[in-house]
């Protein structure tokens, strides 16, 4: 079975990449193929990366409060490209009130500060494998 392919992306203008880098390394150590896009990616660039890399998962790291703009745009573009079966998860600072809206538009996992890496790894393994099996 092929390895899970994960695109880790930092959208927006924020440069605080500690979380993105730590999770990228943890997923890699857990046996996944990780592509880290680097900083300041537009939703368009992230979708292109997912398409090009044949990603099973997109992990977004957002701490700046821009998620309400960036994530809906990203989900829209994924749908347009027929990538709406890619598992989208977010890590970062997301106020509670925004969580239902993000889930409604298709974000499957939202991981707030303090989430153990193991919990994220298991979540991805559980939810992304279904797609691989179906696909």
């Amino acid at each position, binding site marked *: 079975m092929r390895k899970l392919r994960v695109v880790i992306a930092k959208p*927006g203008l924020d440069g605080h990449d500690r979380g993105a880098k730590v999770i990228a390394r*943890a997923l890699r150590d857990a046996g996944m193929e990780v592509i880290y896009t680097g*900083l300041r990616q537009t939703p368009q660039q992230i979708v292109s990366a997912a398409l090009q890399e044949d990603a099973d998962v997109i992990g977004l790291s957002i701490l700046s*409060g821009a998620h309400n703009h960036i994530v809906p745009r990203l989900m829209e573009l994924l749908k347009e490209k027929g990538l709406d079966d890619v598992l989208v998860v977010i890590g970062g600072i997301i106020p509670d009130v925004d969580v239902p809206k993000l889930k409604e538009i298709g974000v499957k996992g939202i991981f707030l500060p303090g989430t153990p890496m193991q919990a994220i790894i298991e979540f991805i393994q559980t939810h992304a494998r279904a797609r691989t099996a179906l696909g």
Partner: protein
Amino acid sequence: MKTAAETDKQRWARETLAPALEQSPERAASFTTISGRPIERLYTAEDRAGIDDARDLNDPGNFPYTRGIHATGYRGKLWTMRQFAGFGTPEETNRRYRALLKAGGTGLSVAFDLPTLMGRDPDHELSLGEVGKCGVSVMSLADMEMLFDGIALGGITSSMTINSPAAMIFAMYLVVAEQQGVAWDALSGTIQNDILKEFIAQKEYIFPPRPSMRIITDIFAFCSKEVPRWNTISVSGYHIREAGATALQELAFTLADGLEYVQWGVDAGLDVDDFVPRISFFFNAHSDFFEEIAKYRAARKIWAEAMRNRFGARDERSWKLRFHSQTAGVSLTAQQPHNNVVRTALQALSAVLGGTNSLHTNSLDEALALPTEEAATLALRTQQILAYESGVTAVVDALGGSFFVERLTKDLEEGALEYFNQIDKMGGMVEAIERGFPQKEIAESSYRFQREIERKEKTIVGVNDFVQEGEPPIEILYIDESASERQLARLEALKRTRDNARVGRALDGLRTAASGTENLMPRILEAVRAYATLGEMCDALRDVWGEYEEVPVI
């Protein structure tokens, strides 16, 4: 019985410790600081081997200032309680500043939003959703006029956390002072202006390292003549630590950055004593109490010796390391957020015992959002309780002479000097950064720490132990999109009403200056006076220098 070769400590280990261990073993096989530094169970006079009190410590107010730069410690003047604030539009933040000043504050500390920090106007694609979120949006001189409306710049000190576009934001501040009739030589405050730590840690860079360094030396030269009381740079370890560095790496990389700036200033033809006294520092106050105290003490000593011996500074103001500190944002937990008050208080105490000159204490809700006014007030009260109730301000360097603290101070100093050697061999900090050296060191440390938490080798209360289910949510500050809409409308109005021909000429002048070697500040001031936007000025420089793109290290 004591044998000839046995030291007191060895005798104690044999006679007292061994039976005690046999009866009840210790909680862990080894103990380390939060940075992974091994700690022995006991420090005695023997651990002061190699430490010479007169040379390494001396007295407070005397070279190398290990025990502090002031002979009277905090008995004369307390540290400055400087709380960082900014959000939404300039009007909203102006109201918050006026309230702070009315409550007795004498200094302001401006937090800018991400588009401002990155030199992008609010209508740029990447500014989507970011305007006014993490700080205040300042697009042009018009916004700076509003930000300080009704606040006399001659009567306060302002600290501005701005790096890549520091020259433009500073120029806006200077023009507002001019409009108020305040002479530049009467202004005092700080611009962060530390681009090296952006490449290393926080990643808010625009231009490549070398032209970025040139902007900074231009600011040094300009201020030494025109704005002599201004702190031209705040060399920052804070962000390096937040990115995952150990205490030693924070110390070493920050001071190495400082040395690099001094070297570039000297290479640009400046006299050391003309600009080094205006260099200040900014450190993190993290959770490992004694290691932090030792870090600040070592920093003062290393800087004093480097300025005197390596750069031949003669003015003692060049030797004295002055620093601001901020409690560790990264240590705050979203879980059981009230615990953060306790963490912050302990961290602040370490900064005070380490002799900080200025301090920001974080608010309990900052793992979740920007602070509410109530949380920000509690954070300030924490400092006031330390200053007025704890008693620690009555004595200078209370921990001086502690076997443990002096050993730790010396070990950190030696560790930093080893890092300096490695960096010098690479040709300096700019080269080290271009090779990804500090970035790689920090990424290693942050991953190691995360794994220690996962394995519960390090405990974080409420996160990996003492967890509480079903916590009630706390009230947080929610910033909506209205600031963005107002700033976009204002940007459009500005471009309609200003003299666009003058703006065009000023931007051409800036491009010409950037291609040559003249000091950029007069050209930037002209563009600011013409109401060129921050995005336009940064774009003019992007045209000449290009943008920096890092190769990410994971």
